[in-house]
């Protein structure tokens, strides 16, 4: 029975690590995407994109460190990613930022579902909350309604 419990624990951690890997991949994509967002914004608005990118880098680094502590090879960033639509204006940029943050939110909700430990849930919750708060601002900038979501990431 003890062996069964150990196997179950290992399986739980493997599921958590897999979900963390997806969240890390989403963070890589968001960091890259915010470069596109910032380039399409008016200069006065680029600070917001820069702050969002910094937040994604912080989450990325924390997830990378957590996986490295477990000797799990973290997914690497790609050189480039396919854009879902042309980003030619500040409104397009805000809409892309919404896509980025919504993608990140979905990945971190998945981590909450798969997490085996409270520490990982705390990390996921912080990342999810930050993503939704930023997404609210981007939805408003993109002219989307409603600007809030009842269940972000679900």
């Amino acid at each position, binding site marked *: 029975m003890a062996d069964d419990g150990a196997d179950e624990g290992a399986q739980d951690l493997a599921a958590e690590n897999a979900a963390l890997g997806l969240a890390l991949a989403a963070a890589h994509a968001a960091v890259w995407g915010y470069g596109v967002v910032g380039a399409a914004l008016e200069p006065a608005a680029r600070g917001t994109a820069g702050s969002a990118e910094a937040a994604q880098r912080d989450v990325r680094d924390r997830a990378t460190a957590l996986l490295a502590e477990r000797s799990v090879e973290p*997914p690497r960033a790609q050189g480039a990613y*396919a854009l879902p639509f042309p980003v030619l204006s500040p409104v397009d940029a805000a809409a892309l930022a919404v896509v980025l943050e919504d993608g990140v*939110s979905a990945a971190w*909700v998945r981590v909450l579902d798969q997490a085996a430990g409270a520490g990982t849930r705390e990390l996921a919750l912080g990342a999810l909350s930050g993503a939704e708060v930023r997404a*609210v601002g981007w939805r408003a900038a993109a002219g989307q309604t409603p600007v*809030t979501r009842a269940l972000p990431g679900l």
Partner: protein
Amino acid sequence: MSSLRAPGPRGFSRRTLLAASTAGLALLAAGCTSAPTDQRERVTGEQADQLLGQVGVQETLVAAYTAAGAADPVLAGEVAELAVQAGEQLTRLRAAAPGATPAAVSPGTPPSPGEARSWLRAQVATAATSHATACVRQSGARAALLGSISAGLRGQDGRLA
């Protein structure tokens, strides 16, 4: 000119990542996980009680939206969508908490018209913090739901600022 597309199948493009996330979360939203006997989905008595408690927290928040709207009709119109979302969150919480039944709750002393917004914002923040605390103590789909609701309320808090 370099391509904006991912160079190869290794890793995830943003599109493929979102597709993968959507597939996984469709199961999550339906209340399903990979294994019914998964450790994460086992509910202790304490966790079940806590989830019922979070239903009460959300009921109080829904009542707060009603009270704030009654105190300030202009605010009521402004936050109508937020109130609807709080109700949606309550519905999902009740569905996740077996034994939860609708209860009449009071959010406390109704606000004066001039204070309705700040009072409501404090109620939203309190509920968000409560759900966040509960999220960390839960696991599996229950943790995901509470975390999502908490994040949604953080977004509402920012909107009310």
